[in-house]
């Protein structure tokens, strides 16, 4: 019993929490931004896959790591543009379009990866982001190794959550985005172009998702393999609901979620073979469903979420 609790006392657990949370933070913020403008982006799973692939591929071909992230962001935005074209301009079903983008982006990732990187016994690797030493903080006992041995993108993710919260709630642009997600007709009547706002939000949101994917291949791991996203995108969609569409709570939710994940990984080694490991692996998915159930009726959903906006049509 003590062993089960002792896990919490290990700095390694907390370091792992931040690492596991990072792609979820990027993905959840991206999905949140899209939904705040009124568009559900179920392309997330595929966009994260593509980001993981293309970011890695860029670095593998000699780009530096930050360029890798940038390349991922650009391609993410491109898929966002596709999603926006179909769901905003044409007003197609956001559910089905998003799934289509996921299937398209992930199969395209596999195709391009296989085309460029021949099958090999051990997958090729790149040199990933290294932990940043923050003078003073990283040397603190326990807290140092627990919180301040992360790679740069992790810190970036946390900063982004704060920035997005600020933009959404304290700037005219953020208000325009929220109004578009609540009532695009009102936004239009006040001179805000809901079409442009939605295009912008979806493209930027998709770029964030893609960066979240590339974190996996450029920081958490150092190679790409198909199906590595493992439903993280869907988890992010659930976390957006859990967060009530608030970036601060999205950050919190991702961390909480990562805590469960990191904890179950360590618990597996403590418990050993007595419990099938698959049960532990189910935890993240079941947790997401529970989070959805808890929040479903309480959350203040953006009123125009999943409603196409056509000028002059009410």
């Amino acid at each position, binding site marked *: 019993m003590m062993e089960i609790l002792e896990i919490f006392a290990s700095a390694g657990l907390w370091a792992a929490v931040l690492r596991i949370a990072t792609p979820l933070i990027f993905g959840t913020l991206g999905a949140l931004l899209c939904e705040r403008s009124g568009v559900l982006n*179920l392309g997330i799973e595929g966009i994260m896959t593509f980001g993981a692939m293309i970011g890695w591929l860029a670095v593998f071909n000699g780009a530096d790591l930050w360029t890798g992230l940038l390349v991922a962001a650009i391609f993410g935005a491109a898929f966002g543009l*596709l999603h926006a074209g*179909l769901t905003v301009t*044409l007003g*197609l*079903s956001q*559910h*089905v*379009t998003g*799934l*289509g*983008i996921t*299937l*398209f982006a992930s*199969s*395209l990732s*596999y*195709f391009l990866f*296989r*085309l460029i990187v021949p099958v090999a016994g051990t997958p090729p690797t790149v040199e990933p982001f290294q932990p940043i030493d923050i003078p003073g903080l990283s040397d603190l006992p326990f807290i140092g190794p627990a919180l301040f041995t992360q790679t740069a993108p992790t810190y970036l993710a946390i900063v982004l959550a704060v920035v997005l919260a600020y933009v959404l709630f304290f700037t005219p642009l953020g208000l325009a985005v929220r109004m578009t997600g609540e009532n695009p007709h009102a936004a239009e009547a006040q001179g805000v172009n809901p079409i442009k706002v939605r295009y912008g939000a979806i493209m930027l949101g998709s770029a964030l998702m893609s960066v979240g994917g590339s974190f996996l291949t450029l920081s958490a791991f150092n190679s790409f393999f198909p199906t590595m996203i*493992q*439903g993280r995108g*869907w*988890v992010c*969609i*659930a976390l957006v*609901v859990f967060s009530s569409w608030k970036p601060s709570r999205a950050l919190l939710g991702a961390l909480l979620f990562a805590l469960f994940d990191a904890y179950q990984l360590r618990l597996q080694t403590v418990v050993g073979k007595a419990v*099938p490991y*698959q*049960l532990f*692996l*189910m935890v993240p*998915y*079941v947790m*997401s*469903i529970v989070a*959805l*159930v808890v929040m*479903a*009726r309480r959350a203040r959903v953006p009123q125009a979420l999943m409603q196409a906006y*056509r*000028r002059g049509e009410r």
Partner: protein
Amino acid sequence: MRLERRAHRPFGLVVASPIIAIFAALAISGVLIALAGAPVLEAYYQIGVGSFGSRLAATETLTRATPLIFTGLAAAVAFRAQVWNIGAEGQFFIGAIAVAAFGAEFTAGMPPALAIPVLMLIGAIAGAFVLLVPLGLRLRFGVDEVVTTLLLNFVAVLFVSMMIEGPLKDPLAFGWPQSVPVADNALLPKIIARTRLHIGLIVAIAIAVIVYAVQARTVFGLQSKAAGLSPRAARFAGVPLASTLIKVACLSGGLAGLAGAVEVMGVKGYVTTDLSPGFGYSGIIVAMLANLHPVGVVAAAIFTAAMFVGADGMSRAIGIPSYIADVTVALSLLTMLVAIFFTQYRIRK
């Protein structure tokens, strides 16, 4: 320039839309093939040869189409009633593992004519059960079933993995994680000897016709259509919404579970975690390509299967990764959405 809603949907355009969509998808994929430095027409020729170029190839394609018909129907009946079942993949696996669990011993003593339908029913019930969970959450708590069905896919595969490494592990499989095999009495007879094509195809086509009849002719078909198009109006007209959706979920989940059952009984004989190369997800594409029409599902499933089967041969012949089939099929979903859109709207200056 703006979009204007058409008063009438031109019938010809509606019928032609899947064909236009498929050609558009092939054209876009063609660009990818060309960028990869391969001859485009040759690649498509090879896909054609690989899928229908010989008797064996054709039977392989039809074998691959069989589960796609079932999962395509699963998506079509659900989407028609606006039940967003994206969980056919998980329902497929649970249906399959249920057949393995009961097919090894429980039905072993029965004559095939009894064992086969009993196991099919068991697979269908198991699949339906998996979809009833997210539907229940939607009806009770208002949880969007898209995300829950997606998440349950992962849970389902992990559950299958747990079973085939645990209680249902085949002790004779040299330690490979695979389930106990179903007994010989429950294996589906072949349509053509020395091929893999089994009577599951006939069952699938028959069920597609039955589903069509149910949708077009029954009270349930009318009510589920109304529930999907306008829940408010359906409620006003006294359509029992919850029970109609539950029936739809049972049908949809059942068809996906049946897909898994038939695949185990018809092709493999046992369950592994790679039993499905994404049949559940491809089913969504099949349904959309068919414009949710049950009989159209059969044709769309055959097209999709042909792409997958043909791409393997094409890949061997000219070295383009066979993932091009996945890309083309996924693209055809997007192009189909656009094509359907233009049957409803037109561009006006």
